């Protein structure tokens, strides 16, 4: 490809470390987690364990740790548990079950949080990857969710963000499929751990991608990594 050139005073000296120090590109992801009363017990224990796996997996990857930014919103009531921060500073929360399932309000809050974050990126000249919203629920919305679902679906189709909806046993998949044109995924049992391994490895691929790469995610419904049934 190139050849070593011996020192020659008639040739130019290239080198030095005079590079711009631009911030790393960011890959924002919102975890939108249902902590309604019905999640109490085993489901929430598994979800908490999954979050710790997520933290561990992403922190073990130095580039992902600097590029992936996680925000956590729980519902209900809707609460921004942690605003966007890079994974190297992320600490998996310990979720406690409470309240009902205001899914519409929660999704709306997530979209707002993302818009604010994008404005900050643009202001600071930070490049960013397509954001992800990752919704996990076991129930049916208890609020006025339909207008929000339509807005989320439209934004997903305009590729403003990628919206993933995951339901456990008891979730209403017809409702979930209204939020995104991507098929909602049904969690196999309570295998949150495998879900978060998949999510972190997908985010690693995105955060390692070149500016012009297209990312193909591994299929969550098949193979040893599979955690979902369609």
């Amino acid at each position, binding site marked *: *490809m*190139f050849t070593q050139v011996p020192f020659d005073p008639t040739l130019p000296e290239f080198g030095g470390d005079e*590079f711009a120090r631009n911030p790393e590109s960011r890959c924002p992801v919102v975890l939108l987690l249902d902590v309604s009363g019905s999640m109490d017990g085993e489901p929430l224990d598994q979800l908490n364990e999954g979050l710790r796996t997520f933290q561990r997996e992403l922190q073990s990857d130095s580039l992902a740790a600097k590029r992936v930014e996680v925000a956590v919103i729980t519902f209900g009531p809707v609460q921004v548990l942690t605003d966007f921060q890079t994974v190297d500073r992320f600490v998996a929360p310990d979720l406690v079950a409470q309240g009902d399932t205001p899914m519409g309000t929660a999704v709306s809050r997530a979209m707002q949080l993302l818009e604010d974050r994008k404005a900050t990126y643009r202001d600071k*000249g930070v490049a*960013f990857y397509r954001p992800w919203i990752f919704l996990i629920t076991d129930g049916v919305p208890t609020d006025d969710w339909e207008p929000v679902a339509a807005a989320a679906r439209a934004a997903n189709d305009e590729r403003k963000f990628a919206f993933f909806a995951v339901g456990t046993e008891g979730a209403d998949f017809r409702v979930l499929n209204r939020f995104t044109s991507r098929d909602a995924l049904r969690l196999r049992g309570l295998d949150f751990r495998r879900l978060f391994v998949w999510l972190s490895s997908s985010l690693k691929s995105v955060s390692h991608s070149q500016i012009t790469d*297209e990312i193909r995610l591994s299929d969550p419904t098949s193979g040893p990594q599979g955690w979902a049934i369609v």
Partner: protein
Amino acid sequence: MSEHVAPTWIVAAASVQGTAHVLNDLPCQDASRIEALPDGWLLAVVSDGAGSAIRADAGASTACGGVAEYVQRAFDPSAAGADDLERLLTEAVGVAADRIRAQASQEGLAPRDFACTLLVLLVGPERSAIAHIGDGAIVARRGDVTGVVSWPVQGQFANETDFLTDDLALVRMNLQPGLPALDMVALFSDGLQHLLLDYAAKGPHLPFFERHFAAIAERPRMPAELASARLATYLASDSLRARADDDLTLVLAVRALG
């Protein structure tokens, strides 16, 4: 026309394969061409093949070759007004895109399998022109001012950009046919843009360009091949490897009077 001796250019150009490409068993998908034209004009072309396109390396080299060969054939220094340059560059880019389409259909593939970006600079004694599709950037110095002539065209997100093979590429192309003459120019692919552009200050990272423009300006008699080989060694050095894992292409040209 003018009586003075046509200025010539001191040049160095190199592409090196990125570490990510080595790991993923991808070839170097960047290409460049640099050609001296009559009456002190210079043509520089850089193309960066998309990592996700299977024949991106062929796309990049066909793009550079298509533009260079068309301009060498059609360029007329006595008709080099802004309108002439606009037509010339539009045609040259169109020819390059057509060649890629022909090659794609020959191989039974889609044009997007050859997806690549394109940076073209034509610079003469009194004026210059650029055409740019996608990411990568052009930085130039005129008098004592160094600035970004063309910024990376970025899509909505960090991993999206425009390609020569897009349907709307020529519509979305940044075409500037009426630029003044430039004394020193640098074209580079997206693997370097994070290091050589200061996004917060919205300008070039000056220390790099001051050093590297000076490095070749001080060596008016250097043979381009040897200088280019040395530039390639630098682009492949640990100092750059630690900061960029993509393919890297850098073209440097400095006007030498006399």
